[in-house]
């Protein structure tokens, strides 16, 4: 019994010390990690979607609440004035969730473009939705604000053959994004 207790104590002490060390390390790196994720994951996509903006898109981000749901909003400015916004929504692709960054021109109610942030589609098949050939098709499509949320896009985009599921996932994400669009537009878009 004494032996068992000894073993348990040693193991528990090691675990605890490790826990303390790790959480300390975690606290040291947490902020940097968040930045890195933004820089590397969202950053390039936002830059592409909100092409033509003059501000630092990552720095000018803000979190807004809509129906109790937090949305990370990126804002593009021209001459100091917001002209476009972008945010992520999820769609269900073939392999799992598709994260799509959708950008809107808030002045003209148009899509400025979409980018796939992350996906789990089959390489070479479903992954075709990430290619420019597909994403470019969404650029500049006008939004019909009066229509049903599902039918707001003024133009239908063909699915990629062989990647129907992945394409549908992208549509789903865009659809969700459109549902949020009106609410976000009404929010205060000024940044500090």
């Amino acid at each position: 019994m004494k032996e068992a207790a000894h073993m348990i104590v040693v193991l528990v002490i090691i675990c605890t010390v490790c826990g303390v060390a790790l959480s300390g390390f975690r606290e040291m790196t947490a902020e940097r990690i968040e930045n890195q994720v933004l820089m590397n994951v969202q950053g390039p996509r936002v830059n592409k979607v909100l092409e033509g903006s003059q501000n630092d898109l990552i720095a000018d981000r803000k979190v807004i609440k809509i129906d109790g749901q937090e949305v990370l909003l990126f804002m593009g400015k021209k001459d100091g004035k917001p002209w476009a916004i972008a945010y992520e929504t999820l769609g269900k692709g073939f392999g799992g969730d598709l994260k799509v960054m959708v950008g809107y021109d808030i002045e003209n109610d148009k899509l400025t473009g979409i980018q796939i942030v992350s996906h789990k589609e089959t390489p070479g098949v479903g992954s075709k939705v990430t290619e420019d050939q597909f994403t470019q098709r969404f650029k500049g499509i006008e939004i019909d604000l009066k229509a049903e949320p599902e039918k707001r896009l003024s133009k239908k985009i063909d699915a990629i053959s062989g990647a129907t599921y992945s394409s549908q996932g992208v549509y789903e994400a865009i659809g969700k994004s459109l549902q949020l669009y009106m609410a976000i537009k009404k929010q205060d878009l000024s940044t500090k």
Partner: protein
Amino acid sequence: MKLLRTFTKGLWEELPPFRLVLGLCPVLAVTKSAETGLGMGLAVIFVLTCSNVLVSCLRNVIPRKVRIASYIVIIASFVVMVELASQAFFYKIYESLGIFIPLIVVNCIILGRAEAFASRNGIIPSALDGLGIGLGFTMSLTVLGAIREILGAGTLFGTQVMWSSFRPFTFMVEAPGAFISLGVLLALMNAFSKTQQS
């Protein structure tokens, strides 16, 4: 002199993964490019050296029956640190290594060195052993990564090295290419060490 040998044996005589034939999964998975291979290698050096040192420090404290469990906890802690650090400082590599950073925990080389070397030797030899084996591992990964990247993508560390019209032999970066190129490299090592012996 003995310390030097402790260090250098990992570079040739016990060169992982070729001589020890251990820890093959990351070798196959992360050698799509030289860069990821190098990144994985550095992560392994860090974990291996740190865990060797710590295991060596604690070797007289840990009861025999829970030693493996303790080693696993120690190794896993360093792995989590690597995970966090790479996320914070080398995000690209963190992304391309993906699941294989947490899997360093189960890399047989690390647990093997802890059990076979660090638990029996002092701190300095253990550190050197970890460093040497880790360096050998990094070397192997980088070389394999370079071969696969040059043939499979036409680049080396991301810069184009083949002629511009080169259509990459992408087979090399696919799974079959990984297995076959590692197998062939292993065979070449065997053949080479055999001629060296005789």
